């Protein structure tokens, strides 16, 4: 990912403000809907996931093969993993959300590793942008409340007063810090790695960035995994039945 393509996103201290990929004028109004570069990448990722899923399940066989086998492996593996954290029945309920998080973040992280991708307009790894990781983290934050209240009703809020009522403030802070740490961790890792690869690539375009890219493969998977794992433990904690 080149720094220039990178700089195209966001307007913080790191990047200068750059035009979105496309400004779509909404018919009949003056308002323009900005289609950012990362949105295009995001759509490509969504399209790949949806297409392979469609291919895998459009004509399912008892004895899986090809794409069906791959998707079954992914779903069985991840649902099994989440089942180990929260139990099989809860993994059934919350697994779709967590698995989608994992797959989306993984492919986002890996999209930055495709050689030459930086040259393509509209190709920016979504997870290298704090707005995107914040969106994912807020979704996790909201899902904790959504799933928690759905599972335990008003009793969900009891845990804010436990083990002692006066710890309420501390519990609220803990709850609020979660999305912040989730989003900053993912953003920091991916953005940092992207930056290193692009800067290295500018200095020594050949071979030298390669180990960094290999590390990127590892980090991309680990970050996606950590994000999904933390989200699953939060949801598991929120929906836990106390006996």
């Amino acid at each position, binding site marked *: 990912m080149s720094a220039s393509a990178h700089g195209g996103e966001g307007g913080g*201290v790191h990047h200068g403000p750059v035009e979105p990929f496309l400004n779509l004028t909404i018919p009949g109004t003056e308002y323009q809907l900005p289609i950012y570069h990362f949105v295009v990448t995001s759509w490509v990722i969504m399209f790949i996931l949806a297409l392979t899923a469609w291919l895998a399940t459009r004509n399912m066989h008892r004895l899986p093969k090809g794409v069906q086998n791959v998707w079954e492996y992914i779903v069985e593996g991840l*649902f099994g993993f989440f089942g180990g954290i929260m139990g099989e029945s809860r993994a059934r309920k919350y697994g779709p959300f967590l698995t989608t998080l994992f797959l989306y973040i993984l492919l986002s992280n890996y999209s930055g590793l495709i050689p030459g991708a930086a040259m393509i307009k509209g190709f920016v790894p979504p997870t290298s942008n704090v*707005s*995107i990781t914040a969106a994912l983290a807020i979704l996790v934050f909201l899902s904790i409340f959504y799933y928690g209240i759905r599972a335990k009703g008003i009793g969900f809020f009891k845990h804010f007063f436990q083990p002692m009522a006066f710890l309420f403030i501390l519990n609220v802070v803990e709850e609020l810090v979660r999305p912040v740490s989730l989003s900053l961790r993912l953003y920091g890792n991916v953005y940092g790695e992207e930056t290193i690869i692009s800067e290295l690539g500018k200095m020594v375009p050949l071979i030298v960035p390669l180990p960094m890219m290999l590390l990127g493969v590892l980090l991309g998977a680990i970050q996606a995994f950590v994000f999904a794992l933390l989200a699953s433990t939060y949801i598991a904690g929120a929906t836990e039945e106390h006996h």
Partner: protein
Amino acid sequence: MGSILESLGFEFPKFLWQVVNFLILLFILKKLAYKPILNMLDERKKSIEDAINNAETAKTEAEKLRKDYEARLAEAKQEAQDIIAKATKLGEEMKNEIVTKAQNEASKAIQKAQEEITREKDQAIAALRDEVAILAVMAAGKIIGKSITVEDHEKLVKEFVAEVGELKC
């Protein structure tokens, strides 16, 4: 916190885009991936469970049948043995019976034959005696030269026969 995020490049439109995109992706994957795949996994699990259970049942059934057949076989064997033993015993008895009967009959026949022989012999001897006595008396009469009366004759014969009768023949 907000200012920190902004300094990192946080922009609300992008945030909103991502939320919408993610929810769409979640919806699509639920429809296209998780639901059908989990159903398939459940179905497969169930069919495997069924197959295992069926195999287990069939095995138990087969085991039961085998035991049943073995028991029946043993029973049949025992029965056959009994029948053979019975038949052998019966045969032995019949043989003995037949042999005894035959022996009895044979001895009876022999006895009868012997009796017959003795009777015939006695008869023959008696007849011979009478004949011999008459002949002897006739011869004696000739020698004496006169006939003797019937009374004398009979008397003589009786005397003679009594005498001869004491001899062993």
